[in-house]
């Protein structure tokens, strides 16, 4: 009598055909993200690896050496799918439709031997359930990587240092200030001060939703570091409610220059660098004529 592996090996092309049929008939098929030829190639590779592993008669331990190639291929597929934007259902359907194909073939082959069939189906079920767990683990991991990268990107984007004038930098802070972000803000600002040789930095906190004692402490740290570098720091964009909180919390900002708006901070910066902004009087000629 043939073993399960031999039966499956014999019917390999039929299984692949059924599997493909199952996948193609799914509602969740995404031919916009992946071509059918690509899917066929991927599935064939997967099936080859799986059948090779099954020939070792091991259905329980998918961490055994013979399953290495199967799990590797599977991880590859689910990671790529996670990045391409497949939904969890679509990724899961890939492995689960293989289970259906395998079961169908076995039922046809073992029609006259129900007890063997029962055992074989149990084995195949266990195996493919384990494989689908691997798929999900990897899929979620892939998604988490995407999220992590986006978080990094957001914190990078949200701390631009702008050169508003020769020797004057501005740094608008948008969003909550926590320790990690303060560190990035401080490093960016200090590096930019060195790069541009600027004397004055304006920290605009109009985009910070709330200032508590911790945020204030972070701000004071940034100002002190800037001062140590040899530049002056002005904090601007202090809204009425923020001023209230600061005073209620008893935070002392008296040795830090603070301004209500970026415009007044810029004006202070101009006067500190002995610059003057004047209105260009276009009617001068006319006045002289009169």
């Amino acid at each position, binding site marked *: 009598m043939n073993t399960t592996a031999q039966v499956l090996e014999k019917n390999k092309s039929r299984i692949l055909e059924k599997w493909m049929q199952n996948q193609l008939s799914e509602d969740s098929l995404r031919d916009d993200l992946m071509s059918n030829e690509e899917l066929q190639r991927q599935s064939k590779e997967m099936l080859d690896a799986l059948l090779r592993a099954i020939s070792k008669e091991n259905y329980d331990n998918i961490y055994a050496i013979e399953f290495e190639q199967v799990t590797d291929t599977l991880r590859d597929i689910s990671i790529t799918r996670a990045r391409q934007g497949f939904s969890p259902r679509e990724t899961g359907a890939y492995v689960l439709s293989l289970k259906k194909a395998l079961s169908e073939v076995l039922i046809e082959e073992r029609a006259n031997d129900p007890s063997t069939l029962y055992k074989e189906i149990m084995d195949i079920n266990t195996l493919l359930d384990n494989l689908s767990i691997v798929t999900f683990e990897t899929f979620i991991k892939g998604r988490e990587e995407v999220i992590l990268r986006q978080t990094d990107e957001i914190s990078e984007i949200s701390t631009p240092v702008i050169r508003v004038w020769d020797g004057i930098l501005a740094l608008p802070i948008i969003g909550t200030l926590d320790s990690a972000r303060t*560190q990035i803000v*401080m*490093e960016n600002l*200090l*590096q930019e*001060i*060195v790069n541009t*040789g*600027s*004397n004055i930095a304006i920290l605009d906190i109009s985009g910070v939703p709330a200032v508590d004692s911790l945020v204030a402490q972070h701000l004071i*740290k940034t100002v*002190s*570091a*800037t*001062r*140590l*570098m*040899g*530049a002056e720091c002005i904090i601007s964009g202090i809204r009425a409610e923020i001023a209230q909180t600061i005073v209620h919390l008893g935070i002392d900002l008296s040795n830090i220059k603070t301004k209500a708006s970026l415009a007044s901070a810029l004006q202070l910066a101009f006067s500190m660098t002995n610059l003057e902004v004047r209105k260009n009087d276009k009617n001068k000629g006319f006045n002289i004529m009169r």
Partner: protein
Amino acid sequence: MERIPILKMGPFLLVTIQIDLYDRLALTLENDLINMVSQTGARGVLIDISAVSIVDSFMGRILGNIASMSRIMDAETVVVGMQPAVAITLVELGLTLQGVHTALNVEKGMELLNTKLINNWEQDEEEEEDQDDRND
């Protein structure tokens, strides 16, 4: 034993620290510098630490000490060219170097010392005038 050279430039003393300071060297520098201030009657001290990449609380205290001692001897201290990493470390250590003037580079530090010198001179002048007025 290693020593950090102290250069005299007009009414100012110029120190450039080119190596990472260890404790004994920092103490020697403090000692030498203060002696030099008293010998030359310098009105300003400029310390360039742009090549220093490692700093600890001791080093921060020495800088503060130099500034306070010089102040007593009527000389202003300017620390120039501090690296961002060093500034962050000092702030994290809680050393904000109160009483020490800072500048971005040697050029700006010199400018700062010059304006301080002129301001002090004008103040002295005014005081003298006041005294003259009283004497009259």
